[in-house]
Structures are given as structure tokens and as C-alpha cells.
């Protein structure tokens, strides 16, 4: 038996790993931007300020949302790839940088203003819909906008890239972070854009890092001339990006307690981040200033180039372990390797909404759900088992078997959210008889009440939710009890008991029920996951702040870590439940042997 349990527990490890991986990938690959609703900057928006953007970057970095989900191939990113993304961003700039051709932009600006005037009505509707809280009303607003799309007034400039592409480019160079530092430095040094007489563009990155080479380089074809505006923009973007991407992730999270060594390391990283943040030039800065900044970067890079050296070992490590999943899994492991090998509690991460550990957040909510489920579970066994026994004793009887069977079947088919809505409408002050409170776990006045009053208050609040949770499972349970008893009651030892003159009620209660209830008891194990996940809709209707409500709220706000935590918790409970029901089966029936 022990060997069987040990084997099952060992098998749980790969199963759990697969579950975590599948759920994690599905949650992370699902569309939508992580943390959009939660980060202070409001996520990715074209019009947000630099501060907000930096806040969003730090937010992503802290939760590892800047990493790829399952495999990291960023060691393959070439300079050309970075260059293309920067060019998209440069082409999107509408306002001229100081020192650029102003006349060329006047036409652009006029076109922009005209565009916003032409689309004023549609833009107003969209803005109002954005602000609207009520979902149905928002749907109506959007419907009133119909299938209309924004009309773009053409301007003489090169066509602006699609907004989608701009967002993507911005997020990409941001998320690539440390892995593109050498490429950015190369671009800042040697980027040069050319334009042909027909307006065709082509750009190169010279890799010898000499400003002089750039100045004297030959055009790709006769007649091509350099495009100083594009060149300056891309180089400026590169140096700006570099000053952000070269900053390292802090090793100590805000509000986290750490040992001396890590605090010292953190201080060092902070100081270096502070330093590199300042190594940029203003747009249109003279060549001497630019050369000065680049010189500092070169010195810094020569000192730290070991960090960016590409080796096979590092590539393999990054590929598997520098990903969102690896970081998540690493925190989840109940083993710590550094500074020394020891066991610890699994870390489910931090809730982005509450800014507190997920375990703490779940700890605040689980008791409501568990209380509800446990009461309803006990009640349903207390009601269903006697009903099932009676149905078996009076097999094919009109009242106990047929009548109760039909009643339970009706209850089984009655959707609990419908029943909950109906009783909430007619048995509370909302409408009809004022017997029970409408919603909540208590009246919220625990401090003014005596303990007894408060208990009574809670009981009153729980009657309707518990009733709605309970009635649906009665049919299944009593069916199990009935079948279990019927299987037993035909067996020989019961006949023997009857033959030796044991009274009928004694035969049933003492001899039959004990064996007949084994199947229904083993069912208990599989109800384990319902303790936290069984009452989503009931909690929603009666506004009880349990796990279901927490899950719904977290889904709405994309609080990834909490969602993952709850999904994982229910999976683990299911696994344990399966194990428990198998074990209890063997314990209750000695004939079953797993070994």
C-alpha cells in the first residue's frame, strides 16, 4: 500500500509539471497585453508620457513579462533586426526634431489636424465608449459607430507605418532589453541611411565604429544621397534605447527583505543604472557631444563586454531558462539552491492588482468558499444518504423511490444560478418576503455585535447560498447511495442475517448500510476541488468575496499570477482528490490491492 502511494506521489510530479506548463502557456499566449489594466501607465499607448512608459517597463521587468513565454531565442537577434524596428519607430515620428527640415513637417501637421477634424464624430464616440462603465451601454455606443473606420487625410510625407506595427516595434525593442545592447551600440555608431533620386531608401550599419568612415562612405549606387534626418533619428533612438536597455534588473524587489550580500549587489546595480541613464544626447546635438557620449559607452562596453559575449553555454541556458515559464517554475519549486540547499514554501508570485504575494491574497479569500462548500457538502450527504437508503429499501415504491427520484431529478436539472436568482428575488427584501438578507457574507457590522449575534447574522446570510449550492448534488449522491445499497442487499450475508431473525431495520442499518455506503464515501475525495472552485456563480450572485469572486475579478483585470495560482491550486486539489479516493477505496475494501 505504501509503495503504491509513493509511486502515485512520484507520478504526480511529471503530471503537475505538464499541467503547470500547459496552463501557463495557454494563459500567457492568450491575446491581450499583460498588465495593461494594472500598470500605472495604462499599458501600451502611443500618447503616454515617458514616465508612464518607464513605469510600464519596470512593471513588465519585475513580473518577467518582458521575457518570451516558453523558449528564448533572443541570442539570435541580429543588428539588422533591431535596425528595422528602430526604423519603424523613426518613420512614425510626426514632429520634427530640432535641426530637422521644418517645412517638410508643416504639411504633415496640417494633414494630421484635418484627419482629426474629419473623424471628429467617430473619435468622440470611441472616446465616450472607452469611458463608459456599463458594458451594454458601451456595446450600443460602439454599434452606433457602425462599421465606420478612420479616414486618413493624405499628406506628402512618406506613409506613416500602421499603429499596430509601431506598438509592436516599441514593445519589441523594450522587451529585448539586455540582449540587444551590443546591436544598439553598433547602430548608434555606424547607422547611415541613403535615399535614391526616386525616393527609395536603404540603410547600412558600418561596424568599424569610426565617425570618419561614416562621413566618407560611398553611396550604394550613383546618384544616391545620404538622408541625414533618418540617420540622426535612428541613431538618437538607438542611444536612447541603449540608455534604458543597458540598465540591469534589480535583484531585490520593492519591499522584499534580503541579506547583506544581495542588498550590496542591488546598490551596485542601482548606481550603474543611474550612471548609464544619463549617457544620451539631445536630438540635434553637435557631433562633438555625440562623439563624447559614444566614447563613454565604448569605455563602458569594453569593461562589461563579458556580459554580452555570446557562447553556446549561455545560448542554451537562455533558451531554456531565461523565459517566463522558467522563472515562474523556478519560483514554484519548493527547493532553494542559493545560498544553500533547503526546502521552502512555493512562491506563486505577486498579485499585480493587490501588490501582495498571491498566497496571501488567496489566504484572504479561501475561507469563505471553503466554508460554503463544506457546509453544503455535509448537508448534501446528510440529506442524500438517508434518501438513497430509503429508496433502496422501498425499491420501486411510489413515494420513496419514484417520487423522491423525480423530485431530485428536477432539482438536478434546475440551473443553480436560476434558482439563486429566483430565491434572491422572492425571499429577500428585494421583492416579496423579507426573510433573508439579499447578499454578502455578513452585515459588515461585526464589531457592533456580540459573537452570538454575529454568528446568527452569518447563518442568516448563508442559508440561501448554501441551499443553492446543495440541492444540485443530491440527485447524484442519493443515486450512488441507492445503487450501493441495492448491490449489497441482495448478497448472501444479508439473507443469512434475515434468516437468523434479525429485525429488518437492524439488517439495513447494521449490516447493509455499512458496506453499501463504501462507494459514496470514496466519492468524498473527488469533491476536494469543489471546495474552492464549486461556487463561482453562487458567490457572484450573493456577492460573497470568496475564491470565485477573486477569480472573476482577477480575470477581468488580467492579474496573471492570481489566475495562475488559482488554476494551479484547483489542479493540485484534483490530483490529491483522485489519490485520496483511490486510497480510501482500498482502505474501505480490503479485497482491493494495488500492489
Amino acid at each position, binding site marked *: 500500500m505504501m509503495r503504491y502511494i509513493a509511486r502515485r506521489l512520484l507520478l504526480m510530479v511529471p*503530471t503537475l509539471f*505538464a*499541467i503547470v506548463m*500547459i*496552463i501557463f502557456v*495557454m*494563459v500567457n499566449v*492568450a*491575446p*491581450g497585453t499583460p498588465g495593461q489594466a494594472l500598470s500605472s501607465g495604462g499599458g501600451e499607448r502611443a500618447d503616454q508620457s515617458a514616465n508612464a512608459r518607464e513605469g510600464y517597463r519596470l512593471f513588465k521587468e519585475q513580473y518577467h513579462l518582458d521575457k518570451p513565454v516558453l523558449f528564448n531565442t533572443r541570442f539570435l537577434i541580429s543588428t539588422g533586426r533591431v535596425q528595422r524596428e528602430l526604423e519603424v519607430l523613426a518613420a512614425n515620428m510626426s514632429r520634427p526634431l530640432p535641426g530637422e527640415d521644418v517645412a517638410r513637417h508643416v504639411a504633415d501637421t496640417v494633414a494630421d489636424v484635418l484627419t482629426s477634424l474629419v473623424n471628429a464624430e467617430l473619435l468622440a464616440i470611441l472616446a465616450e465608449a472607452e469611458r463608459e462603465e456599463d*458594458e*451594454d451601454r458601451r*456595446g*450600443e455606443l460602439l*454599434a452606433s459607430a457602425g462599421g465606420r473606420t478612420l479616414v486618413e487625410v493624405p499628406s506628402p510625407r512618406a506613409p506613416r507605418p500602421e499603429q499596430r506595427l509601431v506598438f509592436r516595434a516599441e514593445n519589441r525593442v523594450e522587451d529585448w532589453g539586455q540582449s540587444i545592447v551590443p546591436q544598439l551600440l553598433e547602430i548608434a555608431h555606424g547607422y547611415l541611411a541613403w535615399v535614391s533620386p526616386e525616393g527609395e531608401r536603404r540603410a547600412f550599419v558600418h561596424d568599424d565604429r569610426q565617425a570618419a568612415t561614416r562621413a566618407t562612405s560611398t553611396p550604394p549606387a550613383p546618384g544616391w544621397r545620404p538622408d541625414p534626418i533618418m540617420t540622426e533619428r535612428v541613431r538618437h533612438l538607438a542611444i536612447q534605447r541603449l540608455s534604458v536597455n543597458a540598465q540591469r534588473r534589480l535583484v531585490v524587489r520593492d519591499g522584499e527583505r534580503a541579506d547583506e550580500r544581495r542588498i550590496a549587489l542591488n546598490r551596485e546595480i542601482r548606481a550603474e543604472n543611474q550612471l548609464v541613464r544619463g549617457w544620451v544626447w539631445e536630438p540635434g546635438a553637435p557631433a562633438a557631444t555625440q562623439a563624447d557620449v559614444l566614447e563613454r559607452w565604448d569605455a563602458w562596453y569594453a569593461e562589461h563586454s563579458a556580459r554580452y559575449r555570446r557562447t553556446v553555454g549561455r545560448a542554451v541556458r537562455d533558451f531554456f531558462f531565461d523565459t517566463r515559464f522558467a522563472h515562474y517554475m523556478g519560483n514554484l519549486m519548493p527547493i532553494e539552491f542559493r545560498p544553500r540547499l533547503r526546502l521552502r514554501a512555493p512562491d506563486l508570485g505577486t498579485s499585480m492588482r493587490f501588490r501582495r504575494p498571491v498566497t496571501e491574497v488567496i489566504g484572504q479569500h479561501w475561507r469563505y468558499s471553503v466554508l460554503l462548500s463544506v457546509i453544503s457538502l455535509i448537508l448534501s450527504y446528510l440529506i442524500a444518504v438517508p434518501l438513497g437508503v430509503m429508496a433502496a429499501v422501498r425499491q420501486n415504491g411510489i413515494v420513496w423511490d419514484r417520487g423522491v427520484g423525480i423530485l431530485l*431529478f*428536477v432539482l*438536478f*436539472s*434546475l*440551473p443553480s*444560478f*436560476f434558482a439563486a*436568482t*429566483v430565491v434572491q*428575488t422572492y425571499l429577500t427584501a428585494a*421583492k416579496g418576503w423579507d426573510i433573508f438578507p439579499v447578499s454578502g457574507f455578513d452585515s459588515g457590522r461585526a464589531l457592533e455585535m456580540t459573537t452570538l449575534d454575529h454568528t446568527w447574522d452569518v447563518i442568516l446570510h448563508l442559508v440561501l447560498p448554501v441551499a443553492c449550492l446543495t440541492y444540485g448534488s443530491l440527485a447524484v449522491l442519493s443515486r450512488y447511495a441507492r445503487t450501493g445499497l441495492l448491490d449489497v442487499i441482495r448478497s448472501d450475508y444479508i439473507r443469512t442475517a434475515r434468516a437468523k431473525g434479525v429485525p429488518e431495520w437492524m439488517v439495513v442499518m447494521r449490516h447493509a448500510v455499512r458496506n453499501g455506503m463504501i462507494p459514496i464515501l470514496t466519492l468524498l475525495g473527488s469533491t476536494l*476541488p469543489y471546495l474552492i*472552485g464549486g461556487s*463561482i*456563480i453562487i458567490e*457572484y450572485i450573493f456577492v460573497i468575496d470568496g475564491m470565485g469572486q477573486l*477569480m*472573476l475579478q482577477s*480575470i*477581468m483585470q*488580467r492579474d496573471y499570477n492570481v*489566475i495562475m495560482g*488559482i*488554476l494551479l491550486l*484547483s*489542479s*493540485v486539489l*484534483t*490530483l490529491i482528490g*483522485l489519490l485520496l479516493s483511490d486510497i480510501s477505496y482500498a482502505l474501505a475494501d480490503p479485497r482491493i490491492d494495488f500492489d
Partner: protein
Amino acid sequence: MASTEQTTWWAIVWRQFTSRWSNRAAVAAIAGLVAAAIYAPVIASNQPFLWVDSDGVQLPWFRSLLFNRNVFDSGIDLFFNLLLVLSPFVAAHGLWFRRALSRRSWWERDGAWARWFVVWLVLVVVVFIAVMSMSPRTALPDWSQLEAAGAGRAWFAPLRVGYNDVLYGVDPGTHRQLLGIDSAGRDVFVRMLYGTRVSLSVGVIAVGIYLSIGIVLGALAGYFGGAVDAGILRAIEIFLCFPALFLILTFISFLEQPSIVWVMVFIGLVGWTGPARLVRGEFLRLRNADFVAAAKAQGLTNTRIIFRHVLPNALGPVLVNATFGVASAVLVESSLSFLGIGDRSLPSWGRILAVGRAMGDDRMMLIAGVAIFVTVSAFNLAGEGIRDALDPRLRK
């Protein structure tokens, strides 16, 4: 030679099934729901059956069914409209087929209805895909207004509104509203009627998805055993641990455009473990049977043995599972729409219940809840009936 009246196993099960009044009631209820879903446009449509003006006669209603996606946009509606258009032909062909079959001997009749069904199903699906991809969007006049202006004469369905028509400020006299309007100004009765289509199609298609996954995997595991079995069992164990409702909830609300198709797909993806285990068990039982050995001795391929010889004998428990599955898929869909997750423009009973609750409109709330209840209990009842009919111990 005296004609020997042979009865197949399914015929026995069917006779057993229909011998109980509750099963007949369940079948009648399901048939009624299917009829309501198919013939909804006959009862409520904003397109007139017939339009007569000086230019001649038009048939806007018929054209709207399949040939104008401005009237029926969603695939569900197009599918049921297609059934509506084809239903006379299917019925006529069915009658002819039955007469033709009655003159044949029983072994020619074996499986004939299954083939008939599959042929029609394939035809419907092919035409459906063609309609989905080719149906144009044509601008439409407001026929009621045109008629009021005296431009012509129109013959409408009993209720002349579509399920997304906003009726704010419309004189209730011209539009009969049996159950009033909801908070967005749409006719509740018409939405309930078209909601039948949503519920039934979610139930059937979601179950269809997970049946096809589950049957194939279960058959492979049970038939081949060994490493295949171990691998598939592992996958089953993993999927069994997924908290189904939580997962569906998460993904549907993450989608940017939560179409009802995704609800079907996700219910299908998390539900396949049940039928897979059942089919696996049946295959384990049957794979050493004599008829399988006979088939192997004939040199038939594994595919043929699995799908033509063993599977038909393993379908009983799956059928029970599927019938209960439809009920629970309907329940999941209405729970999701009750929580406000998913496509809000589709008429869904759960959504109507939630809106009725929010508006304090008891009639609306009760009618939606009763509709869900009736559908769920009809399928549950049918499932119980099939289970009892399949059980040889209960056979009379």
C-alpha cells in the same frame, strides 16, 4: 423463403427507450426545441415574406435567409436557416427513402439510415461553408416604413422584428411584444426564440468536438494498449485535473472578440476525457473478442477493424455520456453568458436571465430560466432513458 423479420440491437434499444412515457416526453421536448430553432424566422423576422409594388413581386424573407449577411450575420443563424430551407427536401427524401427501403431485404437495410444521415450532413456542411464564404452584404430598406409610406404591399411573419432590432420609441401597436423589451430595447420573446439556436448549437457542437477527440484517442488507447495506452492515459490524467469552468472562463474573457465558436471549442477541448475513458474501457473489453480475431484473420487493416467492427459495439456508453454532455454544455454556455462573458450581441438565454435580473423584470428572468431548465432536463431525461434502455438487466 419466409421473410425473417430481423431486429438489430439499436432497434431493440429504441423500442425499449420509447416504451416509457418520460422518454417520449423528452424526445418530444427536444424535437420541439429543434423545430423552434429551425423555424424561428417563420415566426419572427423583419423581412416580409412577400413584397408587391409597381415593379413586381419580391421575396425579401427568403433572400435574407441565406443571401444577405446584413440580416443574419452569425454562422449559427446561417446554419439553422440552411436547415430551414433544406428541411422540406430532407423530409421528402426521407419519406421516399423509407418506401424504397421497405422493399429491400434486411441486410440491405442495415446501416442504410446512418449512411442517409451522413450524406445529408456532409451536404449541409458543404453548402454551409459555401454560404458562409460567399453570402454578400446587401443594404436593405425598412420595409415597414416603405409600406406605411404606401410604396407597396407587404406580408410579414407574425412578429415583424429581428432579434437585434432596437425598438425604443416604436409604437408597440405595430409590433406585438409578447414579453416586452430588454434594457437595450430589443424584443425579449424574439431573442428567446433565437436563443434556442445558440443553446442547441453550443450543446451539440461542443459535444461533437469532444466526442470526436475522445473516441479516437480512447479507441487508440484501448485497441493498441502498451505505450500508446500509457501515453494517452497520462494525457487523460493531465486534462482531468484541469479546472474546466475556471479555464473556459479565463480564455473566453481573454479573447478580444469572444465569438460563440470559442465557447464550443473550449468546452470541447476540456471535455474529451470522459468519452475517451469510456471508449478505452469498451475497447479493452472487446479487443480480445472472437469477432475481432476473425476480422484480423481476414487480414483487415487496423483502421477498418477499429472503426467498422469494434467501435459500433462500443458506442452505447458514449451515447449516454454525450446526451448528458449536451445538457451540461448548455448549462456552461448559459452560465458564461449569465456572468456576461462572451459575445453579448448573440441572443443567449443566460444573458437574458442576467438582464432580467438587473432590470428587476421578473417575467423575463423566469422565462429565460425556465427555458434553460426545460432544455437541460429534456437532455438529462433522454440520457437517463438511453442508459436504462441500454441496460440489459432492465430489459422487459
